[in-house]
């Protein structure tokens, strides 16, 4: 591993070209007791040292630009550079979020058009772009469901239903909104267990949070029946848009009976994941919930685009960010959608699905077990290594680490929780058949190694900057900031 940036620090060194023309020694008009006495121990390095250090750090990462990244449920597709370039134009970067509408028509036009595009894609009535990530989109949707029930003076609804296969954010969000979480089991084919659902609903049911296609990589076929069961008891349906890439332009959550949903722009609309953010999770709502959407939104009048705030939306659940969410990500999503057009969007779903089903077929033909062998894959699928774990004492984690040694990012592992030793594989539509074949070939090789060289798998990764890391020690005695001994170099 490279040194820490603090190790490069030498007292008195700095990047001279970046210093402003400061004329003050001190802020003498600010009372002394409000001023900092000891400077913060930040690095003292040259510009080149900083550039080299962080460039070298970047080279320790796997990324879409450098590696196949079939991370299930994360939709690691190509992030187009042209889109990035368009969003980085100075006029967009320099716009202050509180600039007057007359100085903001360019940005607002893009945001407004994105709202319209997302309405069309989701089959919903209105869209708010402000939620800053999928999880905040979920929070928004559930808070809107809560506001809806409260507006009807219905305060008896205390339960949110969540399938046991759901993303962890679903129950965490429901709890954050003050709901008790009730889990609904999955049946043998990967669908929601309808009998269990019927038994669970009642006047206490606020709603259900569903992903479709589900996190199990299959389409929930009885979705209309599920919607009817919920609506009959006065509950509402939340759609987790994590898997929208699978159905873009093919089927719409609004038509399935959902009342509200979020869209992960960093998945379906190809905005960069940035090493863990920024994401963006706009929320779309149908008839029942549109009035509760968070502000601000963009409206259009005869004179141009205008901000819609609480004044125009009296029932809004309010504001969820300082300004209007991750605007730069919204621009990228808008530009990506403009490159695709309607037909391009459909092809996204088609080729994502083609790639997933092709890999599933080839892997099962090679002897791997699909979690749901009778089902078609959506844009992703699960294989379970339960048999291999038993026969060869090789876990899904071991296989994941061995894939890293082969220069491929590992699929999502141990999620969903209900499938033992699972790998959730999502190739996305932007990968070539050659890459998929290479992945399959590596998996076949690993299967062979399980019998001949299990240590090679158990000791993987051997060809990365570090081998397996001690997470238990890290959590037992967390060291999350560098100690003072490091800055004494300075």
């Amino acid at each position, binding site marked *: 591993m490279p040194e820490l940036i603090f190790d490069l620090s030498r007292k008195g060194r700095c990047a001279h070209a970046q210093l402003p023309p400061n004329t003050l020694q001190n802020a003498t008009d600010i009372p002394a007791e409000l001023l900092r006495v000891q400077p913060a121990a930040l690095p003292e390095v040259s510009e080149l040292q900083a550039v080299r250090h962080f460039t070298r750090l970047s080279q320790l990462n796997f990324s879409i630009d450098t590696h196949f990244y079939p991370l299930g449920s994360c939709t690691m597709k190509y992030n187009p550079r042209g889109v990035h370039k368009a969003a980085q134009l100075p006029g967009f*970067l320099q716009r202050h979020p509180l600039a007057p509408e007359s100085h903001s028509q360019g940005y607002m036009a893009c945001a407004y058009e994105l709202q319209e595009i997302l309405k069309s894609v989701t089959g919903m009535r209105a869209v708010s772009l402000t939620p800053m990530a999928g999880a905040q989109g979920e929070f928004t949707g559930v808070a809107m469901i809560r506001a809806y029930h409260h507006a009807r003076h219905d305060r008896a609804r205390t339960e949110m239903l969540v399938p046991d296969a759901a993303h962890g954010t679903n129950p965490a969000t429901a709890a954050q909104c003050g709901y008790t979480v009730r889990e609904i089991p999955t049946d043998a084919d990967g669908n929601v267990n309808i009998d269990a659902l019927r038994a669970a609903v009642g006047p206490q049911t606020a709603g259900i949070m569903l992903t479709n296609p589900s996190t199990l990589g299959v389409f929930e076929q009885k979705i209309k029946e599920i919607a009817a069961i919920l609506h009959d008891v006065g509950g509402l349906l939340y759609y987790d848009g994590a898997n929208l890439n699978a159905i873009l332009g093919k089927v719409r959550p609004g038509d399935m009976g959902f009342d509200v949903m979020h869209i992960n722009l960093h998945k379906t609309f190809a905005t960069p994941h940035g090493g863990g953010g920024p994401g963006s999770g706009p929320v779309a709502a149908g008839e029942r919930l549109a009035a509760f959407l968070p502000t601000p939104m963009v409206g259009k009048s005869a004179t141009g685009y205008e901000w819609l705030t609480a004044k125009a939306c009296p029932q809004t659940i309010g504001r969820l960010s300082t300004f209007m969410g991750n605007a730069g990500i919204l621009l990228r999503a808008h530009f990506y959608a403009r490159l695709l057009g309607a037909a391009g969007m459909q092809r996204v779903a088609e080729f994502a699905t083609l790639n997933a089903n092709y890999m599933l077929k080839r892997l099962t033909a090679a002897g791997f077990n699909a979690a749901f062998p009778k089902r078609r894959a959506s844009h992703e699928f699960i294989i379970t290594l339960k048999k291999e774990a038993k026969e060869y004492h090789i876990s899904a984690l071991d296989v994941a680490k061995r894939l890293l040694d082969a220069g491929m990012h590992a699929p999502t592992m141990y999620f969903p929780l209900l499938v033992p030793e699972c790998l959730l594989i999502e190739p996305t539509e932007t990968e070539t058949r050659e890459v998929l074949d290479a992945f399959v070939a590596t998996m076949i090789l690993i299967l062979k190694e399980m019998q001949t060289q299990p240590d090679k798998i158990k000791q993987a990764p051997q060809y990365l900057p570090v081998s397996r890391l001690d997470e238990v020690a890290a959590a037992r005695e967390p060291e999350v900031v560098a100690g003072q001994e490091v800055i004494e170099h300075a």
Partner: protein
Amino acid sequence: MPFIPHTQQDVAEMLSVIGVDSIDVLFDEIPADLRISGLRDIPPALNEMALLRLAATRAEQDSGKLCFIGAGAYEHHIPAAVWEVATRGEFMTAYTPYQAEASQGTLQVLYEYQTMMARLMAMNVSNASLYDGASALAEAILMAMRLDKKNKIHRIVLPTNLHPHYRDTVHAIVRQRDTELLAIPFDAHSGKITVEMLEKMMPDTFTAFVIPQPNFFGVLEDIDTLTDWAHARGARVIAVVNPLAMALLKPPGQWGKKGADMACGEGQPLGVPLASGGPYYGFLCCRTEDIRQLPGRIAGRTRDTHGRNGFVLTLQAREQHIRRARATSNICTNQGLLVTASTIYMSIMGATGLRDVALTCHANARLLRDKLKAVAGIRCYFESAYFHEFLVQLNCPVDGVLTQLHKKNIQPGLATKTYYPELGECLLVCVTETKTPADIDYFIQQLICAM
């Protein structure tokens, strides 16, 4: 099909491996009555050349303005190297570092970021960031509620000179729980929170006291007195600060006798462009003993099987993918790319550079303020110490002045009437190191014309 690489031959062979005739068959598990044949109201596809032209036209519409608005987002010079390096594909197109061995670059950046932010705030620990300043405050308040085992009802004190959008966001996020948000007015003369006001208005016990530094009006609070006052009543102190200002001002960890318990705020001033308000990032620091209630990602240092140093995401047992409904927060991302840029920014600037930026902002603010005070019909509303932003009152309607200056491509500040009608015809004016004396003179000249 802009980014789909399949040749016709690929498709034919892949379908034959799967054993179906067409891609359409792959969707046969979706009930037929739900399937649509196409999307309506989507503009026709563009190629990259046409897209860039469209984008340039849109960006041009909003560009070339002389901006004196602050109010939570600040225009600073960003060294070119910051985003050149941050947007390298290896940083920009990686995901959350779940596979630590394949993500050491991102993880070491997070660890270095956490160290820098903790040092800037003079706090023990930092998380790897949250969405933005306002939502970071909401998370800090939720954290304070989890830490407060004493009080049944959680009362949170929010002064009204905290950014109005922060107050709105806290309301929207925190009101889903049983809690009381108490609005404490500021002193009309100084623009500050005063102990007299607190003694008069506050209940005996409360969970947390939110102290902004500087506050929404750019005014500096008496942080030592306020912090000690809250601690004497058994409450936690949540500092909401401008991180750049902390290169010059006393950092939260040193407020009062014991220091603030949490420090949060908007990371944007540290190397993130204005960009219509996002993506930015929120930071959150706390005491070591409270780390298990800290929400969001945290990177930690550990060792590999050969005893070498390495980094992982740690304390994941707090998080939603493990703890589900009992997680500290539903958050499952940080603002990785923004934090990467900010870490590079802080490295290049160093403590000296940051202090120089803060002092240059301050010198410019003093210059502008002195010149504005000399204009007939303008007065400075609060005569308190301030940092790079202040409130001025005009003797004529602000709206008319704004309209005229906007026509000249000047954004003279934020009209505060929407948020604080009681203050009358006021403008919140900000100036940073990016403005030259000539910019300031031009602004004054045009303002005089418009009044």
